[in-house]
């Protein structure tokens, strides 16, 4: 089903990766592969991970996002998570999930602004 798959498009020197609303585990697992493949293929600064459609962010999904951001970091790119809904943010916080040191933005526009500016000098770090 096309509405349940990940979309990866390149805009100038940024990848825009959009997750579907209710991805199953196979789709979540594909996030890592699709993203790293695209990073390898294109000369980009990093990626904006659009979570605005996402309705459920459970511990597995959150861990995959954090790990993917870390891997992208090792490849020399930056990940900015964009568009998380209030309900998902509340649920993720109560559940106790963290996204490591991955930077976030309210919207894709803001994420694109952020990614063209230098970060605070720290690389995404894996949480213990």
């Amino acid at each position, binding site marked *: 089903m096309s509405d349940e798959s990940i979309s990866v498009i390149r805009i100038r020197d940024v990848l825009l990766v959009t997750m579907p609303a209710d991805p199953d585990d196979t789709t979540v697992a594909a996030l890592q592969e699709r993203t790293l493949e695209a990073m390898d293929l294109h000369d980009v600064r990093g990626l904006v991970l659009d979570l605005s459609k996402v309705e459920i962010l459970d511990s*597995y999904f959150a861990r995959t996002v954090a790990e993917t951001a870390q891997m992208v970091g090792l490849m020399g790119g930056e990940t900015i998570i964009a568009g998380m809904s209030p*309900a998902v943010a509340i*649920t993720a916080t109560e559940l*106790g*999930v963290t996204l490591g040191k991955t930077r976030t933005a309210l919207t894709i526009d803001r994420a694109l602004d952020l990614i063209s500016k230098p970060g605070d000098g720290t690389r995404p770090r894996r949480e213990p």
Partner: protein
Amino acid sequence: MAADEVRVAIKLGFSSGDITLIATAISELARNILSYARQGEILLRTVDGSNRTGILIVASDEGPGISDIRQALRDGFSTSGSLGMGLPGVRRLMDEFEITSEPMHGTTVKVKKWKQ
């Protein structure tokens, strides 16, 4: 995965925020079953309190059980290599939380969320 559960919660009139919360809790309970017991079941039922309605979720399995429940409810504790946020996380998401487990016989987790 959680589409059917979400439909039940919508029918009960939960807010969209609560539906996200309930669906996430169900997802975590299902993950727990998969990582520890391989198979089990999750039942959903509406519950009526004195002047409120809610949803009851019962996740049960016949897996290895939990020998130390207190430890399993501590943040960051996991014997399956996951992040160990499953049970304590679910407990925070829901209004009522009850767990019974017998080593070698399985585990049952009952949680309730009341409509605001």
